[in-house]
């Protein structure tokens, strides 16, 4: 902390790859505001959207080295430190946004947080929802067999690739920045992504259908430096954890609203939304948990959440 006007000021810089109008950034702004008010300006949080401090893994590295930074991170990326957390990237790992929220209160999740702390990272709650990923296609997709032969741009991770295969698609990798031109020139047939990203990259201009499979729920967490966290007085630590959870819930609420709003806008511009039987896709992709060796863990999660 720094001394100013005779009182100690604790500065924290929070980073996200998302733009400043994204619900996540707005949620971070909300956290900054409430901490400023509740601590009389002693905990000063600044938000850096659009990867200004670096990409996610870079800022995480900075936090680990003890810098006064934090980052909104895909929960699966924390698997480098807590291998079990990779399960967050599995298909249909949670039945609903509500269940995902409930999961962070479980003992299992708390034990992961404790492991993160040993790596110099403090998790302030993995309740920052960024939306569900759906398939954007040029043909109507209602069941897994309709994905057959489609080259789908997905994430590079093994679980994403395996999930695509399990649902019948052919996974392919392409930089996100090339998704638009890739769809346009037919390098790829489909992209799977969340609504905010689809709308942000104008992908609705170059595709016809959106199959509402919601196969991956994008749950991100706010992770800051453990060293900085421990430098706070105890009452501020408690306050920060509590306010961060609130801000994450608020951002989740905004994301859900934005999804509805963007879907409406894209529908107006000619994108057709296809309602699918999610259970068919869920069954088709379930074998991924065997392939990845996560079957036991998945069973444990299901048991804890009663899903």
């Amino acid at each position, binding site marked *: 902390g720094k001394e100013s006007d005779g009182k100690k000021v604790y500065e924290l810089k929070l980073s996200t790859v998302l733009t400043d109008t994204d619900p996540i950034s707005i949620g971070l702004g909300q956290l900054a505001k409430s901490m400023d008010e509740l601590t009389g300006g002693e905990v000063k949080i600044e938000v*850096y959207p659009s990867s200004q401090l670096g990409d996610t893994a870079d800022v995480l590295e900075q936090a680990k080295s003890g810098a006064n930074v934090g980052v909104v991170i895909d929960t699966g990326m924390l698997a480098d430190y807590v291998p079990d957390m990779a399960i967050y990237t599995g298909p249909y790992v949670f039945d609903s946004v509500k269940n995902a929220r409930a999961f962070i209160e479980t003992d299992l999740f708390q034990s992961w947080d404790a492991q993160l702390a040993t790596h110099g990272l403090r998790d302030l709650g993995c309740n920052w929802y960024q939306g569900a990923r759906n398939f954007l296609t040029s043909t109507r997709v209602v069941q897994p067999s309709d994905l057959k032969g489609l080259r789908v741009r997905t994430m590079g991770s093994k679980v994403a690739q395996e999930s695509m295969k399990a649902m019948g698609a052919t996974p392919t990798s392409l930089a996100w920045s090339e998704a*638009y031109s890739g769809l346009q020139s037919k390098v790829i047939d489909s992209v799977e992504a969340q609504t905010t990203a689809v709308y942000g990259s104008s992908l609705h201009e170059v595709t016809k259908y959106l199959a509402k499979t919601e196969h991956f729920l994008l749950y991100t967490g706010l992770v800051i430096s453990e060293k900085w966290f421990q430098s706070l007085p105890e009452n501020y630590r408690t306050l920060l954890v509590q306010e961060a959870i609130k801000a994450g819930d608020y951002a989740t609420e905004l994301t859900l609203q934005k999804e509805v709003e963007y879907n409406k806008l894209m529908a107006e511009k000619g994108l057709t939304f296809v309602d699918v039987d999610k259970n068919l896709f869920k069954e088709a992709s379930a074998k991924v948990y065997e392939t990845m060796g996560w079957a036991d863990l998945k069973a444990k999660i299901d048991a804890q959440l009663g899903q």
Partner: protein
Amino acid sequence: MGVVAILFVVLLAFNVPLAFTIGLASLAFFFANDGISWIIPVQKMVASTQSFPLLAVPFFVLAGNLMNETGITRRLVKFSTVLTGHLAGGLALVSCVLSTFMGGISGSACADAAMETRILGPAMLDRGYTKGYACSVNALSSLITATIPPGVGLILYGVTGEVSIGKLFLAGVIPGILMCAILMVTSWGIAKKRNYPVENDRPPTAREVWDAFVESIWALMFPIILIVGIRFGLFTASEAGAFAVVYAFFVGKYIYKEMTWKGLWNVVKTTLGDNGVILFIIMTSAILGYGIIYDKVPQTIAGVIAGVSSNPHIIMLVICAFVFLAGMVMEGTVNTLLLTPIFLPIVRNLGVDPVHFGIVFMTTVTLGGMTPPVGTAMYSACAILECPIDEYTKESLPFFGAILIEVVLLIYLPQIFMWLPNLVFG
């Protein structure tokens, strides 16, 4: 950041290599801010290279070097000479046309500048063009490549600012062609004044054109094959560079049969060095970029700019002037990521179409790569021909004047290019 700026100027004046100047000056920022992590400079250097589109730089530098080694360049120059040899500054005009042609393939101004300087530069010097003129033409005309779709810069702007990339692409077509015309007139005017040699005293006959065309058919098909490849989805714009390399190798080895394995080894060696010079600057610039963001310098400036006027045209001019200055020391990708979220809301509030602003903004951002003292396209061109920066600076002024005219036209008369995206997307 004041200390950083002073140190930067001093080190530069004392001939410390540019990449080191940027790196050293940026370190001052880390000394001045305690509590900041010392791992960041190295982390930023690595991170700046972890970009797939940036691979276009070594790819196109390698393709250009290969074309020299395999006889493709020689034939291309011959054909161009037949076509424009009777005009003053024929090769400079070729550079402009080639950049327009390349625009449909390459999204990177820097790679385009590097390749064309590699291909056309030595021939330009042989014909008595000054180094400064040759570098200016090749560097500045690469701006056309970035404007004509596809362009990495426009994609980046579209994603950052949530603006339709399809509209941006279509909006770039006419400004790109306009830029080609303006730069051709400028190049020709200077060449005429300086009496750069006219190689043919008469325009070519149809027969001469046909013969030269047939001889260089493989070279001329090169961009067409790439365009077709991208349009038909065989590969993406970033992968096109790798195809260019394979194609140049194939033609040189199996069609022209001019390339030896020893030749290939030399080409790769040259490419490693060329790429290293460019990338090392990009790497140290990333450290500087961090300091600038950390201190929220852009936000401070945005606040000032928003207070200048409420006339959208004036604000756009002021923003362009600022982006031009920022471009003198910062890399284009960094500027796009940094400045788009700051400036776009300002102009949006004033009722400017984000697509219109995008074309103006990205033209200026990309131009930053051509402005001294730090500019990747400029640097690629000057490094290849060993042209001193001050000579380049002096000789590039008329070209900057030409681009200024273009930018003013784009700001005040958006109807000349906006009708195309509006026609298609309504």
